[in-house]
């Protein structure tokens, strides 16, 4: 009897151990089912799909495994889900074409800058990831970047814009502008369109993205001889609840152009306060401003005349954008894709083009793929949703033309 009890207890413990594993593996299950979902989605269209499904057992080359991490839950999940949504569309399209097949898996890193991001990355590595298409946020990307250098896994981040990410190693590339580059191109654009403007800059000094752009902008503005009247109206994460002082400073200095290199969350607040006190300069934002028109409860008439630099405009009428927006809406309850989704889409296509050119498939070891992709990216030119003729420099930073839009009657209209 005692033995039986002991056995029962041991069995229970073993079961509970597995239960523990199940719970911690949960995060992976959802994306994984989606991965198989996208693979089985093309079952009807291509005869090859069966070999994709039973990838490991098949005699043909198995599907190429691309992994991504991003905040799929939590306060920044907006970005992670958008990137994942964009990537899934690209994977579906590529798998439907036949030829090289892709197996895609997304893991949740909760935009964490340390262990959570690395463990999400490790989960992908255990899964057999050959190419890493993440992470979404700069903090997570920095944490993972060092790991990819050690592991020699090629990394192309859709949206981590800090210059430090690309500088971590030769195997790391970016799909979006680096922050200082974006600031510099904003200054160039201003010099071209509004050379006489009296400029005020408000930025978040506690945020790498915002201060990176502001630094790039200020040094370029000095070089171009722009009239920057207010350059120290900064705020921090702890005191951003009230930005009225910074707006008042710009107003008192007589600025007729206010540069807002931060996210739309705070920008909505700046625009509302400026309207309350009857201050009407031209506001100029960066890609983080994209999304301001979709803030619930925000009076879009306040954003009238707002200029923002965004590589992607969901209202554009070219065929590629229209098709992407339609598919994204279908998959995501009618949600309109933002530039993060477009970045994700372009990342998968850039990787696909490079892999096809280099002959990389599911059998290529990650280290070898990393070498081959680095050679490819040195000469690769991509036309995507976020730009035409995009190339990469030796540091892995992207070169593309900056695009700006003006908010007119509640929609984006290309500048100029």
């Amino acid at each position, binding site marked *: 009897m005692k033995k039986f009890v002991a056995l029962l207890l041991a069995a229970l413990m073993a079961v509970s151990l597995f239960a523990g594993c199940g719970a911690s593996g949960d995060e992976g299950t959802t994306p994984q089912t989606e991965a198989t979902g996208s693979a089985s989605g093309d079952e009807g269209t291509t005869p090859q799909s069966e070999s994709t499904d039973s990838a490991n057992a098949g005699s043909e080359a198995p599907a190429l495994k691309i992994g991504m991490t991003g905040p799929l839950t*939590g*306060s*920044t*999940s*907006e970005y992670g889900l958008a990137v994942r949504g964009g990537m899934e569309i690209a994977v579906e399209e590529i798998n439907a074409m036949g030829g090289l097949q892709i197996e895609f898996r997304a893991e949740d890193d909760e935009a964490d800058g340390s262990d959570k991001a690395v463990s999400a990355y490790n989960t992908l590595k255990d899964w057999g990831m050959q190419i890493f298409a993440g992470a979404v946020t700069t903090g997570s990307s920095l944490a993972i970047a060092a790991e990819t250098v050690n592991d020699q896994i090629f990394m192309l981040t859709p949206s981590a814009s800090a210059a430090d990410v690309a500088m971590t190693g030769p195997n790391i590339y970016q799909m979006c502008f680096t922050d200082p580059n974006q600031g510099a191109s904003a200054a160039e654009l201003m010099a071209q369109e509004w050379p006489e403007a009296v400029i005020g800059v408000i930025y978040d*000094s506690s945020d790498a993205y915002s201060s990176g752009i502001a630094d790039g902008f200020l040094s370029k503005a000095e070089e171009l001889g722009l009239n920057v009247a207010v350059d*120290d*109206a*900064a*705020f*921090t994460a*702890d*005191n951003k*609840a*009230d*930005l*009225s*002082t*910074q707006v*008042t*400073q710009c107003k*008192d200095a007589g600025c007729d152009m206010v540069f807002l290199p931060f996210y*739309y*969350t*705070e920008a*909505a*607040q700046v625009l*509302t306060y400026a309207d*309350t*006190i*009857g201050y009407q300069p031209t506001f100029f934002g960066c890609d983080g401003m994209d999304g301001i028109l979709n*803030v*619930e*409860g*925000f*009076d879009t008439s306040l954003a009238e005349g707002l200029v923002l630099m965004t590589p992607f405009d969901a209202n554009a009428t070219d065929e590629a954008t229209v098709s992407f927006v339609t598919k994204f809406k279908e998959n995501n309850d009618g949600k309109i894709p933002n530039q993060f989704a477009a970045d994700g889409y372009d990342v998968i296509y850039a990787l696909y083009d490079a892999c096809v050119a280099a002959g990389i498939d599911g059998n290529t070891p990650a280290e070898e793929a990393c070498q081959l992709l680095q050679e490819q990216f040195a000469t690769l030119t991509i036309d995507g949703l976020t730009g035409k003729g995009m190339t990469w420099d030796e540091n892995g930073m992207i070169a593309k033309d900056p695009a700006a839009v003006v908010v007119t009657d509640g929609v984006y209209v290309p500048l100029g």
Partner: protein
Amino acid sequence: MQVLQYLINGISIGAVYAIIALGYTMVYGIAKMLNFAHGDVIMVGAYISFCVTNYLGLPAIVSVIAAMGVCTILGIIIEKLAYKPLRGTSSLAVLITAIGVSYFLQNAAQLIWSSSPKNFTSIVTMDPIALFDGRLIITGEVLVTVLISALVMVGLTLFTGKTKTGKAMRAVSEDRDAAQLMGINVNQTISTTFAIGSALAAIAGVLLCSTVPTLMPTTGSMPGIRAFTAAVLGGIGSIPGAMLGGILLGIIETLSKAYLSTQFSDAIVFSVLIIILLVKPAGLLGKQVQEKV
């Protein structure tokens, strides 16, 4: 003229801190605990008001009443479930529970309303008053916030001074055991305190978001901490102290942002707090209680 404008901005945000601080002070004074979830009750109040005006299309005043109702019930539930079972245990246990409740509320809000920010439409429809050719602007929000916080302060002072429940609160605050012996229902009194504190939080939430329109699940946490600072500055447990502390904090913060440094304004605010506490450990209007040994 600039100074005046910054002063007005400071008073405006300070009056919001003051209302939040009143909630902290009341609960601390009577239940002798720091309710760190207070800031998040504010956030819930703002969300309720947002939903009532934006989804149901009801007028602003109804939304404020709805927010007060929901927050009052929420406050009582939190007190009954999380704090009451711990009454009599170490104050550290209650403090940690309060932090837990705070996280619980934030994450629940994230699940219900999602993490993407909402833009709160101000409940004040008054046009701003422009003086000196528009060089000095007093927004309607400033007037309403200052007026309401002054009203709330006077109301609370009268309530604790004149009504039976208010007197019971003061008795519990002075000596819980003695109050119980005098036939005061301590549990009920503490529940009432939480109810009032949470209703105030709802008002604070609506006013905070009318001044600063961004509404997110974390909206309440930073103002909550600042208001706590304000309560300590004014003397925790003192109702006029909370008001004074809140307004002072708002003014110091705004002026240091405007004239010293926007980035170091927090450091300056908290340095002032440290200096005041060194000189007057009980806060500006706090009562110095002699410990008899």
